[in-house]
């Protein structure tokens, strides 16, 4: 299990978003996921990734509150 720092989670989340087709240059903590064309399937896969990397289980209810890239990072760090 990786050490859970905000920086590590930020990298995991950014890498995942890029793999979903987002432009890396457009990704900041304040970027809204809709701007990046990230949808519910992408977030479901993101949940798999953070579960594998950090053992953090995101529920559907958690995911529905997410609006920005920073929201994902904060949620994962708070649950790790």
């Amino acid at each position, binding site marked *: 299990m990786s050490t859970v720092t905000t920086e590590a989670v930020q990298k995991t989340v950014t890498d995942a978003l890029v*793999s*979903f*087709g*987002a*432009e890396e240059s457009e990704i900041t903590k304040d970027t809204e996921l809709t701007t990046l*064309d990230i949808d519910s*399937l992408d977030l*479901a*896969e993101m949940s*798999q*990734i953070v579960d594998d990397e950090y053992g953090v289980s995101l529920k559907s209810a958690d995911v529905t509150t997410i609006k920005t890239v920073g929201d994902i990072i904060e949620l994962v760090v708070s649950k790790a």
Partner: protein
Amino acid sequence: MSPKPATPATRPDDGCALVTGASKGIGAACAQALAAGGWSVGVHYGNDADGAQATVEAITEAGGRAFAVSGDVADPDSADAIFGALEAELGPVLALVNNAGITDDGLAMQLSDEAFDRVLAVNLSGAFRLTRRALGPMVRKRYGRVVNVASIVGLRANAGQANYAASKAGLIGMTKTIAAEVARRGVTVNAVAPGFIATDMTADIPAEQLGAIPARRPGTPEDVAACVAFLASDAAAYVTGTTLTVDGGLSA
């Protein structure tokens, strides 16, 4: 809309296939057909360990790779146990054939809650939980094949099988929706709908009913397995959300 990454056109090398209910009948034939197509195969069984072992041996003797794994698919904990065992032995499951199924027939007026619920639990809920467990790794690999073994009874009437018909119609509906959810990750979800196939499950069907089949013969497990193997192949990459009827023209 930004372009999404391309999905791999061919099956990754490290994956395996899982066929539930593969100790005999259609499941055993599917396991052998997938092995012949180059898949390492998890041969799942409920109770028939000898049957599963025979399937494994048939695959091994033909030069393939197979591993038997047991579990009650109606048990909510079984999906993790089955997948865990298989991932350790053969690698990630990239093809899932939900074949395990039971019947418990009776006219609806006389069908017990237990008979109804048990058939739904095995045939539909079990398939759902296995599919849910399979999708994560498939989505991450950008490659996956799910094939649900439904039945023409899910498409047209068969008196005495309200529970079985509900489970198989449910599988067909589930197939379409999950297919739409994961299509852009290179994961396809399809169903086959066999008609009268000569197996233990259909052994009690009166011979005169076979006269209604335009092909003038019952199907074989291999007839179904060939279609399942196609849907699990790279060639079927653009086929998703559909139900392939395999019934000798019975429902045509």
